[in-house]
């Protein structure tokens, strides 16, 4: 009974969070209520985070989780507060990239630790690794360029398009192989290779 109760509370909390996101997004598109919309969405996120923390799936490493959140939240909030307004675009870029990195890491970890992964799940995992990694490294480059730590000139080298194409083709092949093979060390290695190759491709 207790377990059912906890699950119910978590589900209800997620439901409330979804409502907050939808209303928040609605307000974000209205000039008068935009700031309130952002706050509502943030509140929904807070509820979702707490709900996940007490959920049944999260059963160990509680301190690591708290420390990780504090580090990420602390550094990003501090940085967000002190940069000039003109630096806003690159802040958005780098935070977006970090989210992509999270997604890629979550996908790789999931693939490497779960037995019996269904085809559909394997496909979304591979896509998650690909998209997340490209997003991460690409956003990092965007940040460096906007911050003018890197020149705005595109970096080119001979046969660049060919190399990009080869890397991408390699990723596709590995991806299909990984999905086809199901789980097991071979496909797990493939997924890791995709992770690094996609990072390269994003850059």
């Amino acid at each position, binding site marked *: 009974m207790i377990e059912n109760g906890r699950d119910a509370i978590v589900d209800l909390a997620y439901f409330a969070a979804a409502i907050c996101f939808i209303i928040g997004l609605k307000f974000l598109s209205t000039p008068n209520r935009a700031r309130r919309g*952002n706050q509502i969405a943030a509140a929904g996120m807070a509820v979702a985070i707490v709900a996940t923390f007490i959920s049944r799936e999260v059963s160990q490493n509680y301190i690591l989780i708290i420390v990780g959140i504090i580090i990420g939240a602390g550094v990003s909030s501090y940085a967000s507060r002190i940069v000039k307004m003109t630096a806003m675009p690159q802040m958005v870029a780098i935070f977006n990239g970090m989210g992509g990195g999270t997604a890629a890491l979550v996908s790789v970890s999931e693939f490497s630790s779960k037995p019996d992964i269904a085809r559909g799940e394997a496909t979304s995992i591979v896509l998650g690794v690909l998209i997340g990694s490209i997003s991460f490294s690409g956003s990092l480059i965007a940040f460096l360029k906007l911050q003018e730590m890197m020149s705005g000139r595109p970096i080119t080298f001979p046969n660049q398009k060919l190399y990009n194409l080869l890397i991408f083709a390699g990723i596709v092949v590995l991806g299909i192989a990984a999905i086809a093979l199901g789980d097991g060390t071979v496909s797990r290695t493939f997924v890791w290779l995709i992770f690094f190759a996609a990072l390269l491709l994003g850059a």
Partner: protein
Amino acid sequence: MMGAYVFLLAIFLGVELIGRVPSTLHTPLMSGTNAIHGIVLLGAMIILGEADAWWLQVLGFLAVILGAANVFGGFVVTDRMLQMFKQRRPAAGAGAGAEQKK
């Protein structure tokens, strides 16, 4: 299959919500939705919360840090952008100029 329905409805919902937005709100909206996409933090928390092996803990820990940065940084940045909307546009320009002098 349920997931497919949610996905479909979410797409339509998103298009409806964001369809007609004044161009001044484009950037804060992009920043706000970026913060919401930090919801991947929840996935990272679950990975870390189920991690037995040390390397899974390392990956999960990294993922949580990055995810938290996306969420918290994203909302703070969006709020800063929206603070400029309190007054009329001219004041917003002055606000940006004052910020630049810092």
